[in-house]
């Protein structure tokens, strides 16, 4: 009992310990190798880091719920791109011409709605066909990307609304708009997963689906709701990011699913479902972004980031296995 509890504590603390190690390492290494005079743990630097974590971070938070629920979503990158296009393009639609800046909430709503609908499509297919979510969303990743291209061909879709840019670049209590969205999302999802019946049922379904079914929990609607939620979050991520950038390429968001999954796994969520935490995923997101910035800070090629993150992901998996091993006498399977 104590062994399991201890292992759990180690798991939940691990990502934060890792962040501390990163901070110390890059600060110390930065003193010797830094190309800039600036210290690594600089306040503005850290604020920027949080802001830059937001787009992948918001998606990764949603991915945590999907994975706790025992599913996976590979289509978030394409959902992100399509929502972004809807966001930017709808601001130029003639029917909204008379709205002035009131077009902003309208376009936001349309973009978020797009995400919810795309998520709902995935959720309904998973629920009604019984096809594994990996396959369903793998297909959707291609399909939604196709829709992105069909919207505007291979051309970028651009529209800059300066009110929107001002909003996106604003800082409130020192934090950027994007950071507020990230933290707000984390707070809401944390409440959902720890305090609500839906969240607890999502854990139960991922943990032991048969038991959940036998206890009368309706698995399908939970799946649907969670896919709608991650669709919404992918769109929210797009809203946050493109309000500022104002231009979307049809290839934007590619590989986001992989980054998001990486952050979730670093945060300790189980692939098989039933175990994981929103807060730890936030840690995973920050750890990745720290690594990105830190390697830049000590003058390493930005390319090395991919290499290091990949290897760290594997190392985490390895350590997790060692932590759960029963010892020498265990069955050699």
């Amino acid at each position: 009992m104590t062994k399991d509890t201890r292992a759990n504590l180690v798991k939940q603390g691990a990502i934060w310990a890792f962040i501390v190690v990163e901070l110390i390492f890059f600060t110390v290494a930065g003193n010797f190798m830094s190309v800039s005079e600036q210290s690594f743990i600089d306040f503005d630097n850290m604020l920027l880091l949080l802001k830059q974590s937001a787009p992948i971070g918001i998606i990764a938070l949603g991915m945590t719920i999907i994975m706790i629920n025992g599913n996976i979503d590979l289509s978030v990158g394409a959902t992100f791109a399509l929502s972004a296009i809807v966001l930017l393009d709808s601001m130029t639609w003639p029917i909204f011409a008379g709205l002035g800046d009131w077009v902003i909430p309208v376009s936001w709503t349309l973009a978020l709605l797009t995400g919810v609908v795309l998520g709902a499509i995935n959720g309904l297919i998973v629920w009604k066909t019984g096809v594994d979510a990996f396959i369903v969303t793998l297909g959707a990743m291609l399909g939604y990307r196709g829709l992105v291209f069909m919207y505007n061909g291979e051309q970028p879709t651009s529209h800059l609304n300066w009110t929107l840019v001002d909003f996106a670049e604003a800082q409130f209590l020192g934090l950027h708009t994007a950071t507020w969205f990230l933290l707000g999302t984390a707070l809401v999802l944390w409440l959902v997963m720890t305090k609500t019946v839906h969240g607890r049922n999502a854990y139960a379904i991922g943990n032991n689906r048969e038991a959940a079914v036998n206890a009368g929990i309706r698995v399908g609607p939970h799946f649907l709701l969670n896919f709608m939620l991650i669709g919404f979050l992918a769109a929210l991520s797009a809203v946050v990011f493109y309000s500022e950038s104002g231009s979307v390429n049809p290839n934007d968001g590619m590989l986001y699913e992989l980054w998001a999954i990486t952050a979730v796994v670093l945060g300790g969520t189980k692939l098989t479902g039933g175990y994981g935490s929103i807060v730890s995923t936030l840690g995973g997101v920050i750890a990745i972004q720290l690594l990105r910035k830190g390697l830049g800070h000590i003058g390493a090629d930005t390319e090395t980031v991919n290499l290091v993150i990949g290897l760290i992901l594997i190392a985490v998996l390895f350590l997790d296995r060692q932590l759960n091993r029963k010892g020498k006498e265990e069955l050699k399977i």
Partner: protein
Amino acid sequence: MTDEKPALRLENIVKTFPGVRALDDVSFAVMPGEVHALMGENGAGKSTLMKVLGGILQPNEGRIFIEEESTIMTTPLDAKAKGVVFIHQELSLADELSVAENIFLGELPRKSFGRVDWGKLYEQTDAILKTLNVGFNARTRVGDLSIANQQMVEIARALTVDPRAVIFDEPTASLTDAEKVVLFDVIADLKSRGVGIVYISHRMEEIFKITDRISVLRDGQYRGTLETAKTDEDEVTQLMIGRSLDLSRNEEHREHGEVALEVRGLSCGDLYRDVSFKVHRGEVVGFYGLVGAGRTEIAETIFGLRDPSEGQILLDGQELRIHSPVDAIRHGISLVPEDRKGQGLVLGMNCRDNMTLPQVDDLTAGPFVSDGAEIAIFDQYRDKLDIRTPGWRQTVGNLSGGNQQKIVIGKWLSMHPNVLIVDEPTRGIDVGSKSEIHNLIRDLAGQGYAVIVISSEMPEVLHVSDRIVAMYHGRIMREFSAEEVTEDSLIQAISGIESEKVA
């Protein structure tokens, strides 16, 4: 209980699956405050009946009454709401969640905005746990509990409603003796509250200890109900299988050959310690003990699936170094594992490919597997073991348990092993096939194989073994020859009661 209304009553239940009439006109009733055993061989329809009782399956015909009111139970949850609760054999708990969340799984108390009402949840859970007198609290993570305590959580779950009937499916399968006592106390308590209890078990000893009546199913049909106090094991067995099963003591006295396998001072962590024994050619050695006594782990060590921390394994006097099943097989050691579907067979593969899997490297013509050689082996052992299958292309998953087990045995016999270890040879196998497999094991010894049989069924061990090794808690307590063994001494040995004649 004469004038009372039955707590739960089934009337003329029929349940069919494509091609099978799983339940054929079954009626059954459990009275309030009664423990009613439901017995039958595997495939007799017990599990189907349980599922109908628990609302998991809907009958095609017939009616269900709760306290004589006709009712339809559409789902397990619906059944529970109507007072019928099913305690599953495979625990159906979410081990990452707390005790309280598991007990109220699917029915968490709500506040506004879909929030869980934790205060109410813990309060209600504590109230239930108090009546069960358990040593854990509502906030404990279920994964941190012992199996027995997890079962208590399952039972606590039944008490969230005021149950009319509780169905126990093989509840003692993985409990220690001390834990069984606690469970029987809880059952007695439920009984005294007037709950009707349906108790499913294969263990005669338990059945006779705690039940009031016994109903028997065979081939999907109701075969009768006996008063426990007025019947005996023989009568029940007869009813279950339609005849008596020959499980007489083994009384052959054969000359055994040389020592084939010898194990000296073998230990493996906490699993078992200082185990030594010999197996001769032409001899069947039975390993008897409770689940968890370390028997399977010894077999797995000899087969190279575990590394011993100490000790030697010798074959024909030569010490072996075995680090994997590949090594073991090379030395002619074979293992028919306990879990046939999980460990014995690739269920999606055909009969032939399963049978030839360990030797597929040697059945080649050039770089390719030789169809002819494979089919020849399959045909030979199909005939020898009387495996009933439409052909070698049949997917193994579609065969009956007995035929599946014969495929596994054929897989190893076709390798002509020196030592054959058979772990729970007849678990989940119908009676007819059971005696065939027993005879087969005796025959193999007759042909000079050294055979180890691990079994949790005493009659089986007594029936097939020339010598019996009794294990308790990772140690060999005693060795018996077939002539000297008595049931009492065997039970004492596996219960950890030291006798003066320690081997």
